[in-house]
């Protein structure tokens, strides 16, 4: 058993706690256009003020304390404290050993390998520390990069919910991807 390899430090990024004083500003900046929120799910995108985001983050911390159904981290580079994105393992249902996972990298920090490095950390945490058997990701069908990304890590498309999303005057499917522990390999991605 190797307990010396850090669960939270990868080759490029670290999983860290929320910094309530600094992070809301960065997240507010990212919410000024819809690019990030629209890639995640059907929740309507909207600009958020730092104070609103701070409240949301405080709520997340409270929920993590009280319910133990979510692990939420902020992703930062090894070399400084700036915020690169967030990731969460959520809707954990312990008796079923299942959860959902979401990962988001800020628009200006994409295509630098941070997402892949963070993903490896989250999957290891999910399977080797939380002992989950299954992870699911929900993605809009128009998020082509997201779909390629999760496939690279071994996720397969299981569900295609037809015409769930109405955006830009068009109907889009919402997809569910699943990854079982037996399909996960540390070498993926």
């Amino acid at each position, binding site marked *: 058993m190797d307990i010396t390899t850090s669960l939270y430090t990868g080759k490029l990024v670290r999983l860290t706690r929320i910094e309530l004083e600094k992070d809301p500003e960065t997240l507010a900046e990212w919410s000024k256009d819809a690019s990030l929120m629209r890639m995640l799910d059907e929740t309507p995108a909207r600009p958020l003020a730092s104070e609103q985001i701070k409240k949301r983050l405080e709520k997340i911390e409270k929920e993590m304390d009280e319910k133990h159904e979510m692990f939420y981290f902020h992703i930062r580079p090894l070399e400084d404290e700036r915020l690169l994105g967030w990731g969460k393992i959520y809707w954990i249902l312990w008796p079923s050993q299942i959860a959902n996972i979401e990962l988001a990298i800020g628009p200006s920090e994409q295509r630098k390998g941070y997402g892949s490095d963070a993903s490896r950390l989250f999957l290891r945490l999910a399977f080797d520390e939380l002992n989950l058997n299954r992870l699911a990701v929900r993605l809009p069908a128009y998020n082509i990069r997201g779909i390629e990304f999760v496939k690279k890590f071994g996720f397969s498309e299981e*569900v295609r919910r037809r015409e*769930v999303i109405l955006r830009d005057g068009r109907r889009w499917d919402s997809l569910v991807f699943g990854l079982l522990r037996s399909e996960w390999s540390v070498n993926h991605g």
Partner: protein
Amino acid sequence: MDNDIFRGKLVRLSAESSEVYAEHFSRWWHDSEYGRLLDLAPGMLFSPKRVKEWLEKELEKDPPEMWLFGIRALEGDKLIGFADLSGATPHGDTFVGIGIGEREYWSKGYGTEAMKLILRFAFVELGLHRVSLNVFDYNPRGIRSYEKAGFRHEGRAREMILREGQRADVLYMGVLREDWLKQFGAEYGL
């Protein structure tokens, strides 16, 4: 315009007081098979008092976040189950839940007719674009019933459930307004 939209041949969708819902929900949940067909999470066996407190808060919301109906068998006007629509999105999608708590009404078409009624409500009154549901793969009676009400299979989320030492899948089903109109429009004079 047909306004008699809450009544079928076997059942009607009803409004109930929180006391009546609470007493029935609490009793039905003590039937573990009912609970295991309905929910991924283990049943908590809440008291009628707890259920009532939760329901009162839900039913006070106007407009409702959850459209909850009782299902009453027309014969004897007996409350046999519930149906609800919840989590409606601004995109016109919602999830439906249904449970027939009184076991002697299983496999006799009561649930299917109730589902057809709540779908009709979703499309003709709420104006939704689609309705979604999840059903467990060990519930063939439910799957057959939803197929009859117009739902199509949209996928299978693997190994979502671990019960009795075995893993089971969750099926996703959905019905689009357009397909529903083709199948049932004539029946309802639409």
